[in-house]
């Protein structure tokens, strides 16, 4: 439904399209972007609807991988590999780890969705429609020229990161340390309270 709405608004934007080629003659990158985007959205939908909890995590892998590919198409190469490394290599593994520790069952679970599903649908669709309207209205004529640039290369990103954004970077490292310590404290606290482990 939302995809249809998006298509409609995109088509409408095409009529007034300024700057860049029209929507009806897409480039190869655009076609690839849309196709991968559909995969991403589909798998994301499965993440939030599947009744098998581990499958959700695996679909998440597909979503994140697809997004990495989208980053590549946007010429943000470094971001793409970081996405794979951190999200798939670390976050999803952690998630699976967590799922297994919380005794994720094989097969369908009945209680994954709350009873308030329809209000959630309503709110999500409302928010999406609002954002979509705003975004399409504002940017339907903006064109992203992905010519030969190395804006997304490791060198450029690294330079901006360590020249311009060094301070936030350092602050972030402190945050990570805090998160590390916090996670350790959280997982150990209970064991100490119980006495000799479990």
């Amino acid at each position: 439904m939302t995809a249809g709405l998006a298509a409609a608004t995109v088509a409408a934007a095409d009529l007034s399209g300024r700057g860049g080629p029209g929507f009806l003659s897409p480039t190869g990158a655009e076609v690839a972007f849309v196709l991968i985007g559909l995969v991403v959205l589909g798998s994301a939908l499965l993440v939030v609807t599947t009744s098998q909890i581990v499958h959700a995590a695996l679909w998440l892998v597909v979503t994140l991988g697809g997004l990495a590919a989208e980053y590549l198409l946007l010429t943000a190469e470094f971001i793409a590999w970081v996405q794979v490394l951190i999200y798939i290599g670390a976050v999803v593994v952690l998630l699976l780890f967590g799922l297994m520790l919380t005794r994720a069952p094989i097969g369908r679970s009945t209680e994954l969705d709350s009873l308030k599903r329809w209000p959630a649908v309503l709110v999500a669709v409302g928010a999406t429609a609002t954002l979509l309207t705003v975004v399409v209205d504002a940017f339907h004529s903006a064109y992203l020229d992905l010519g030969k640039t190395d804006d997304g290369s490791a060198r450029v990103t690294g330079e901006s990161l360590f020249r311009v954004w060094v301070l936030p970077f350092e602050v972030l490292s402190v945050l990570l340390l805090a998160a590390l310590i916090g996670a350790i404290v959280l997982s150990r606290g209970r064991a100490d309270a119980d006495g000799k482990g479990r």
Partner: protein
Amino acid sequence: MTTAAALATGLPFLAAVLGLAFGRRFPAAARALATLPLAASVLLTWAVAVRHDSGGVTEHGTELTPTGALDITLSMRVDGLSAIVAALVATVALLVQVYSAAYMRKDPRYSSYAALISLFSAAMLLVVYTGDLIVLLVGWEVMGVCSYFLIGHYWETEVARAAAVKAFLVTKLGDVPFLIGVLVLGVGAGSFRIGAIVDGVPPGGAGWATAGTLLMLGGVAGKSAQVPLQTWLPDAMTGPTPVSALIHAATMVAAGAYVVARLYPVFLASDATLVVLAVMAALTMVSSALFAFAQDDLKRVLAWSTVSQLAYMTGGLAAGGRDAAVFHLLTHGAFKALLFLAAGVVIHLAGTGRISDMGGLRRREPLVFWTMTAGLGALVGVPPLSGFFSKEAVLGAAEHTAIDGGAGAPPAVTGWLVIVAGVLTAGLTAAYATRLWLRVFFGEARKPAPEPHGPTPVLMLWPLAVLTVPTVLLGVIGLNESWLPAWLGDADGRAYGSADAANGLLLQAPAYYDLAPRLGTSLAAVALLALGAGAVYALWRRDPAADPARVLGRLRGPAERGFDVDRLYDAVVVRPVWLAARATRFVDRVVIDGYVHAAAQGTWLAGGGVRRSQNGNVQVYLAGVLAGFVVLAVTVAVRA
């Protein structure tokens, strides 16, 4: 010279601060602290008065930081008037401190009492000396506060508390217009400096001068207990006797008259103000003399008499006799202080303040008898005593105004008012003074005297002796034009000289500077005096045990209660205010609080409704928040 004046003001202030800070811890030092700085002040004020002689104005001051359009100067303005009045104030204050050292000997709160007296003296001296109206106002209000505390010295008693609050409220009632009047004068003259204001009045008067002086009359009436704000003074007698003597006889109550004299050129230029002042004075004079006649309490008699005598001063001022009024202020300060201090000893002896319980005290303490006789004589205006001369001076000025006042003189009507009321009051004064004298000192004691608790302290007696001297002799200074009028200088502060008088360079006609008694008014006053005194004596002779006041008949009760002015106040002011307050309370409780309670109740109910949604499910909360966001965004987008 201004330095000496500032020092004279500062020393008691310092003593007060030290006394309030350390008096409780070092009670031994309190007595020295109370008297010694004040003694120095007395010397200084006298030095200032003598050095000043008859030179014009000496004024020095530092300007405070600019406060806006009109600057305030911290200045000392010494001229004849302020030098003499300051000397009077300081002297009486010192005597009272000395007297109090004995009178309040056993009082546990002596140190704070003495400090307050010192503070009061400092404030009064500030009022007298200062050359700036705003600074004067400061001293004025400090005096009021001190008066409040001193009247309420025996705050354990209900009466004292009520009297203190009453005195405070009533005088403040007058101070509000007084403040506005000060501001009007300041703005009108473009300065708060007294000199500038006095010089700034145009010859024919000015709107701002009339308005300002009229407003200031409120403060004058409040401080000097004139109609219609007179009722606080008799009640204030619940304070210690020295306080009554100091504040409520010699000094503070005279401040009202003093301020008028200080700004006299301004008042003189405002005919309307003078007429109002004259009406006020006439009413006060007669009525309070009548009330004094009806009183049974010794100090209340003296209080009403004070009110009456103050009316003489204000009356003199209204009728153009500034020098006469100041003359009366001086003599009155002396003899009324004497009378109060003597009354203190009498009460001390008799163990009661009720006249109906006294009698025959003549034999127990002859010194008191004689000094009090002198004081009463001066009060009544028996010829060679001081009161006679000052009173005649007032009446003489009034006569001049009434009969041959010319251009620049007050309206004739003020003169007539003051003469009629003054002569009538002379008779009434003689009547109540005679009644007091006879009932206290003669006849038999109507109540067995209490066991004499030791001899009367010497410290209490010698101020009486000291005060008797001016009581008897002070009238002399008015006899020669080169004495008191020359010392006082002209009303605008400039020096007075006979040559000036002859050339018409003075502010007023020469007759106003002549303080010698005049034949017509003297005869009339003395005749009525004799009539009043004789009538009372005759009544007393018929029945020494009965109160001569019975002659008032049905009038006596109301007169004793000051014509129930308090009840009038009650009906006119208090009750409407009460009703308004009650109405306000009703509106507040029912209407305004109704809204508040309804709002609270509504919030409570709404909260109860929202409470149901607080089921702990975070996702529901989040959904609500986001739904709200969507609605808001859509609303904004649609309206944009």
